[in-house]
């Protein structure tokens, strides 16, 4: 298909030279949910050389409202998202090398993939993985693009190692909000908006138009018609442990990672997040009830049950997920409810 990129090469900041650069680049997308499937589709249509997409979940009915690569058939077959994404992406553009990985994006996996990656597009649903991406990106000097959305709002920020502040400069810790797409809902247009910003930045980075890269932190609400840009010129922290003068990449250290273990003989997985500021149990109980969970509890813990999901959550963020021995599945439920 000789002229399939003609409308893109006609755009002067890309041109034929830019298209040739795009064709030689490898993009890594972490997550194949709403942002991951959308970002992967735009990148595949744009003609990147290679695209790697990592996800640990399978396609569920509640994904179809906003996750653009998937169909009812994928739900019926309970296909892993990464596999379903690969199938559709190949039908869209057979010239792109698609690598799909079904599994948890651990720091080990990220480090293995980092070797020949030109760009990472964040499409994950939790800050622990984002902090690991942030450290890997600094360690291996890979640009990455933060993006997230909940309800009708979303945000994005482009991180270029050696130039911009990093996510650890901004957050300093792993925030647990308890507000996720599973507790606060999400609408398609907010997803599309984040994808628009992430993929615009991705194309600029792939064609190496560094002058065009957005330096501000974008933040919007599609229902309230808000759109703001926060300038970041003073956000870089010289003492930052991820991007500062003496980096230690703390989120690649075992003690800063969530521990996930099967409790022997109990068909239960224990999830222990690293030092958090604690969970507001009353607030979480309210959110879980709104989702239809049956919730009991006391000031120290809450227990919640809905269909196959049964778990106990402690004030320090630790949780016991009952009825499973599957670590990835347990962690997935945890992140979907707690962020």
């Amino acid at each position: 298909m000789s002229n399939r990129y003609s409308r893109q090469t006609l755009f002067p900041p890309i041109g034929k030279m830019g298209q040739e650069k795009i064709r030689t680049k490898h993009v890594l997308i972490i997550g194949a949910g709403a942002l991951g499937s959308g970002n992967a589709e735009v990148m595949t249509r744009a003609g990147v050389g290679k695209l790697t997409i990592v996800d640990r979940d399978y396609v569920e009915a509640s994904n179809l409202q906003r996750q653009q690569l998937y169909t009812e058939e994928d739900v019926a077959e309970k296909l892993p998202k990464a596999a379903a994404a690969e199938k559709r992406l190949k039908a869209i553009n057979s010239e792109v090398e698609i690598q799909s990985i079904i599994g948890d994006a651990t720091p080990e996996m990220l480090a293995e993939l980092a070797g020949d990656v030109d760009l990472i597009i964040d499409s994950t649903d939790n800050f622990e993985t984002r902090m690991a991406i942030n450290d890997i990106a600094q360690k291996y000097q890979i640009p990455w693009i933060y993006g997230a959305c909940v309800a009708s709002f979303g945000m994005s920020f482009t991180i270029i190692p050696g130039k911009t502040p990093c996510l650890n400069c901004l957050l300093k810790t792993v925030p647990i909000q308890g507000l996720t797409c599973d507790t606060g809902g999400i609408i398609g247009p907010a997803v599309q908006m984040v994808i628009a910003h992430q993929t615009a930045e991705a194309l600029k980075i792939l064609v190496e138009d560094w002058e065009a890269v957005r330096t501000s932190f974008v933040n919007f609400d599609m229902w309230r018609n808000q759109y703001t840009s926060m300038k970041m010129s003073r956000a870089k922290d010289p003492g930052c442990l991820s991007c500062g003068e003496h980096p230690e990449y703390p989120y690649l250290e075992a003690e800063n990672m969530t521990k996930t273990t099967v409790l022997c003989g109990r068909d239960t997985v224990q999830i222990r997040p690293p030092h958090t500021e604690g969970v507001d149990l009353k607030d979480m109980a309210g959110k879980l009830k709104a989702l239809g969970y049956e919730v009991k509890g006391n000031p120290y813990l809450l227990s919640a049950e809905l269909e196959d999901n049964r778990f106990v959550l402690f004030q320090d963020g630790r949780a016991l997920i009952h009825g499973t021995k599957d670590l990835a599945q347990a962690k997935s439920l945890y992140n979907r409810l707690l962020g």
Partner: protein
Amino acid sequence: MNKILFFAHLRDEVGEESVQLEVAGKTVAEVKAIVAEQYKVAKLDTAMTAINEEFAPNEEVIQDGDVIALIPPVSGG
């Protein structure tokens, strides 16, 4: 006097798009504590802060007339 803007779910929790508070001379961290107390908002410590549309660290001191925006990071994807 200072205008304080709330973004994302903070706006729902506070029930207002913005409020007026007299916080000149206080640090960003102190403003967060005052707002959390006065408007019963949980988890404000992890919100990002912009002063006059520019990112500001927790130690930054507010000037009279500064517009302060509180932006909670969002994790969904």
